[in-house]
């Protein structure tokens, strides 16, 4: 320890070069304004936490961004590289109707998010091709209460309500109506009936 005499710090003669280095190091450490650094770090941390929370609230409840991949919505959506704006307000308020492209949790795996077009709301009659490409057979089904019928635009390569049936409306997480990338296709997504 470094003894003090009347406020003056008198260094002890170090006994060896390594002890001298140690006492220099300890003196350096004591000189760092730890409390001030901790105060600044915690205020910056708090600001960052507030920022992250604000980003979460906006992207979950107001407007988010989606990067859909896969061939099931060709030609409306590319196989990859599209960036879409996701409206999170509309599904909660029930402003989703036939022709809208929606994001929903897959009923086969809740960790997967899929993008499909809504073809029918509850009570609607939906006629769909049973085996697209191989036969022309169609089937007509009435969508049960609280459910919707979703289908990919590319019926030859889409896993949708034709396979897993009508899905509960509660699985819908967002409505995609505007594309912001690639620049050549910026604009709203057509809502086909």
């Amino acid at each position, binding site marked *: 320890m470094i003894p003090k005499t009347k406020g003056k710090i008198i260094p002890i003669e170090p006994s060896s070069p390594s002890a001298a280095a140690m006492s220099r190091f300890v003196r350096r450490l004591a000189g760092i304004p730890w409390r001030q650094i901790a105060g600044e770090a915690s205020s910056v941390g708090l600001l960052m936490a507030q920022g992250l929370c604000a980003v979460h609230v906006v992207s*979950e409840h107001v407007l988010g961004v989606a990067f859909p991949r896969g061939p099931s919505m060709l030609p409306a959506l590319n196989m990859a590289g599209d960036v879409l704006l996701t409206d999170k307000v509309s599904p909660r308020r029930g402003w989703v109707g036939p022709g809208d492209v929606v994001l929903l949790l897959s*009923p*086969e795996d809740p960790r997967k998010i899929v993008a499909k077009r809504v073809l029918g709301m509850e009570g609607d009659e939906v006629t769909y091709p049973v085996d697209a490409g191989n036969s022309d057979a169609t089937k007509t089904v009435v969508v049960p209460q*609280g*459910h919707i019928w979703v289908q990919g635009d590319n019926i030859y390569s889409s896993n949708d309500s034709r396979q897993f049936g009508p899905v509960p409306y*509660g*699985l819908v997480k967002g409505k995609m109506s505007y594309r912001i990338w690639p620049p050549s296709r910026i604009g709203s997504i057509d809502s086909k009936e």
Partner: protein
Amino acid sequence: LADLHGTAPKPWSPASASTEPRKIARDRIVLIMGARSQLWSIAKMSVTGGVIGVTISDRYVTVVAIKGHSMHPTMTATDSALRGDIVLAEKACLDQYKFSRGDVILFKCPSNHKEVFVKRLIGLPGEWIQLPASSEIIKVPQGHCWVEGDNAARSWDSRSFGPIPLGLINGRVTHIIWPPSKIGRVERKWPEDRIPPF
């Protein structure tokens, strides 16, 4: 008075009377500005608190009041929200959707997305379970689960609307925090007269 002000108060005179109103007006403006900035800082604090609260409630833990009798006696409801049971639900389970048999979960009603139900998870995806009424045995499809309320007589659950997609789940109930007599963990329980799935 001299002690209060530190210096002797100035005696009233006609000269000082003319400057008094201006000082009062200036003081009033300072007060109004102070009140407005206080209102602004209160508004800022409430918005920040609200945003942080919504984030915590969406991602980590949320508080729900029970309305309904389908989980009696584990959880009871009464007509007023304050006297019904209040429970704590965690959202960390929604990261991987890994649940266990006997968990009590919150989920959106499949026929009305605005209603939230609380029931016990009886069958996991891929399991074969026996329907209690008939002797039918059904398989719970992938990505779905079978839920039933503890109070079988007054519970509208999978026996009526079938297996529900896991994506409808909102959280897992872990604790009861009201009334004080029922404070404690919600245990993972298996109903006595049910054959476990296989």
